[in-house]
């Protein structure tokens, strides 16, 4: 089975994000980067599936040259080879999906496993858009994946509970955080990753026009949260929720 999985290099979510004074973007000076945490679940699941069913795990990233670091990490975890589609542009989800569709056309995987969203832009769009470009079935927000006879049975997190969906492969699965516990890149894995193949392409090589369709007008920080208040008793709490917050 050939499994394609994707990773995005994102700003470290533990760091405080600052917005540039002209509101054109975020401050990137001194910012640290890491692998999008939902992608870690995706990579882990891809490797687990390979361990169970055999085959190959190909990991893909679209981003700056520095994203080779995240690709090497995925290979240190156990992916077999990597493809970097190198661009310094900040792509919208549609462009990412179109680039991926081209990569999928070349690689012809049996299944694609992606993080359900990236923790920097939090859009949760790419797997779904990719599904429509490829015309493949999708099962998003997976907390459990089983593969059998060319079908994937996927337990999904949905509003108000869980649901199970069966999709015919090839298909797309997006990972939620209960799916597994991603392994650490082990030291022997790091040494092996150094020798695993990493191919670098550009969007041009794939014939994809990455000009954004979504226009970002400006960036604004959310309003600061005010300090909390201690209420005297439950009655007071209920009254204030009714009268001031108007939520009950």
């Amino acid at each position: 089975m050939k499994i394609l999985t994707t990773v995005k290099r994102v700003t470290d979510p533990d760091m405080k994000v600052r917005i540039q004074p002209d509101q054109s973007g975020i401050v990137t000076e001194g910012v640290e980067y890491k692998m999008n945490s939902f992608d870690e679940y995706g990579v882990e699941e891809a490797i687990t599936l390979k361990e169970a069913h055999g085959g190959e795990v190909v990991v893909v990233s679209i981003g700056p040259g520095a994203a080779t670091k995240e690709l090497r990490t995925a290979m240190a975890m156990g992916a077999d080879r990597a493809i970097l589609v190198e661009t310094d542009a900040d792509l919208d989800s549609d462009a990412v999906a179109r680039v991926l569709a081209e990569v999928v056309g070349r690689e012809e995987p049996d299944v694609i496993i992606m993080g359900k969203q990236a923790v920097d832009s939090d859009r949760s769009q790419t797997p779904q858009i990719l599904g429509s470009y490829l015309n493949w079935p999708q099962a998003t927000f997976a907390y459990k994946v089983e593969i059998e006879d060319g079908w994937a049975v996927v337990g999904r997190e949905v509003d108000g509970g869980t649901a199970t969906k069966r999709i015919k492969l090839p298909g797309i699965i997006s990972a939620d955080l209960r799916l597994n516990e991603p392994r650490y890149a082990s030291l022997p894995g790091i040494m092996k990753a150094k020798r695993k193949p990493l191919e670098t392409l550009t969007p041009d090589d794939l014939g994809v026009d990455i000009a954004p369709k979504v226009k970002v007008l400006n960036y604004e920080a959310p309003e600061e949260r005010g300090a909390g208040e201690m209420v005297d008793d439950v009655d007071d709490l209920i009254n204030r929720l009714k009268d001031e917050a108007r939520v009950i």
Partner: protein
Amino acid sequence: MSDIISRKDLDFLLFDCLDVEKLTEHEYFNGHNRETFEAVIDTAIRIAREKFEPHAAKLDHDPPRFDGTQVQIIEEVAEAVDAFVEAGFLRAVFDVEQGGMQLPYSVAQAFMAVFYAANCSTAGYPLLTLAAANLLDTHATEDQKRLFLEPMLEGRFFGTMCLSEPQAGSSLTDITTVAEPIGDGRYKIRGNKMWISGGEHELSENIVHLVLAKIPGGPAGVKGISLFIVPRYRLGESGKSAESNDVELIGLNHKMGFRGTVNTALNFGENDDCVGWLVGEEHYGLRYMFHMMNEARVGVGLGATMLGHAGFQHSLKYARDRRQGRSITDKNPASEPVAIIEHADVRRMLLAQKAATEGALMLGLYCARLIDESVVVEAGGDLESGEETGLLLELLTPIAKAWPSEFCLEANKLAIQVMGGYGYSSEYPVERLYRDNRLNAIHEGTNGIQALDLLGRKVTMKNGAALQALLGRVNATIAEAKERPELVETAKSLEVACGQAASATMALTAAAMEGKVDLFLANASVYLEMLGHVVIAWMWLMQAVVAHDQLAGDVDEEREAFLRGKLQACQYFFRWELPKVKRQSEFLGTLDDTTLSMKAEWF
């Protein structure tokens, strides 16, 4: 984990100041590059952050206890240690043929530093095992390696070091544990050991005690000490742990800090049924132990440094957030209070912590780099500095152990002070870090013993060749610094301090040559502090040279602030601390006998 370790600083020291990447030019290390080094540290930080740091306070509150049958340790410790083993850290420095990754020791020191900072008590278990494994790797037979070392590297057996006894700590000559030969390289062991870290627990299937004991009829004193492998359980047919080897737990020692690393009193051979396997030759045990001890001592110093470093990070963050008081020039009581980092006295305490911990971290890594250089030489690679490397390491070891355990402990004290009453409360980790760090001046040879080792042995060995080598290297840095106008003054003051240290050394060794050995060594602790200050100043001058040059290039605002901070901390150390060398040197030159002539009954 940015709050307990500064990755930026670690990278600056490893790659910019010590150019660890250069090691990969040598055949032994050429499987690596900067990328693999960084990836190793990334994994360490991740595991330390997710598996070690979160239970550090809990383990301190709820340390290992004996329930009448077994030693109970909170389960988070086993999970953390498992993650450490699974990620391959135990094998990292071993040869590729042994399933290791031939990682340079400098990078290994860096990953150990990360675990120390996160949770030194839990880190104690695998790091002790690593030290014991290193010793077996160097001195054990192939059979012993197969039976004991391999399971240790797999994380199935853990290791301990059993030197101390109730009546013999600093003075190992006086150990009374005996080993009677029973054939096939096996011996019956009998005796009591005290203070044994990791001496009993259920974290591993077996425990491999490395025990110092005397074979009856051997030479007197330390020349009659041999080293034995004494497993908790004997090995059955398939190498699996089988019946008990008559190693009894007498009790647990309850401690001020490092509370999570179980510490035991052990009885070997109470029923005359404890078997040990000789390591190497009879009577060479202490020498084998000391081989390992150099690394262990550098490791203790690094541990002290990292506890100081973690305290510094916590108090720094606190000082940026905590608002209290107003600037001295602000007369308006209605104005907003300022963050306490705005007060010069708070910045003094932060600078003192920064200067001590970042200077000491560089020293710990520098020593590790020397160990790497000797590995290159051993592996047949050529390095001009072959012999010098060994000498320097010998000389720097007592300093690398004792200086951080004094001054980074002082840093922990200041971290508490910066945080006021909150620092003193167990709500915050800084009081725990202080308690943990207090051990480091005591174990692996007390600081008093380190001072005697430095002055009585290392400084005088080979006619002072080691000190010459040190001063040679310091002078090279001074010359380099002098090429930069902004650093000329700093370089000159280190030159002066070197002269002062040299003249104190001359006065002391002259006394030794006149036979006044007791006067020569009476104030050895002052000597260690003095030479330690010279060495740390040198570490700072090296950092200043790099920071200076990087500042001249194209750096962003963030980097500029980091580099300016380096230069300022260097300035702090040179203006506040280095001048002490002058006074200490003059004092040592007087061969003061106050402590020597004081009588016990006059107290």
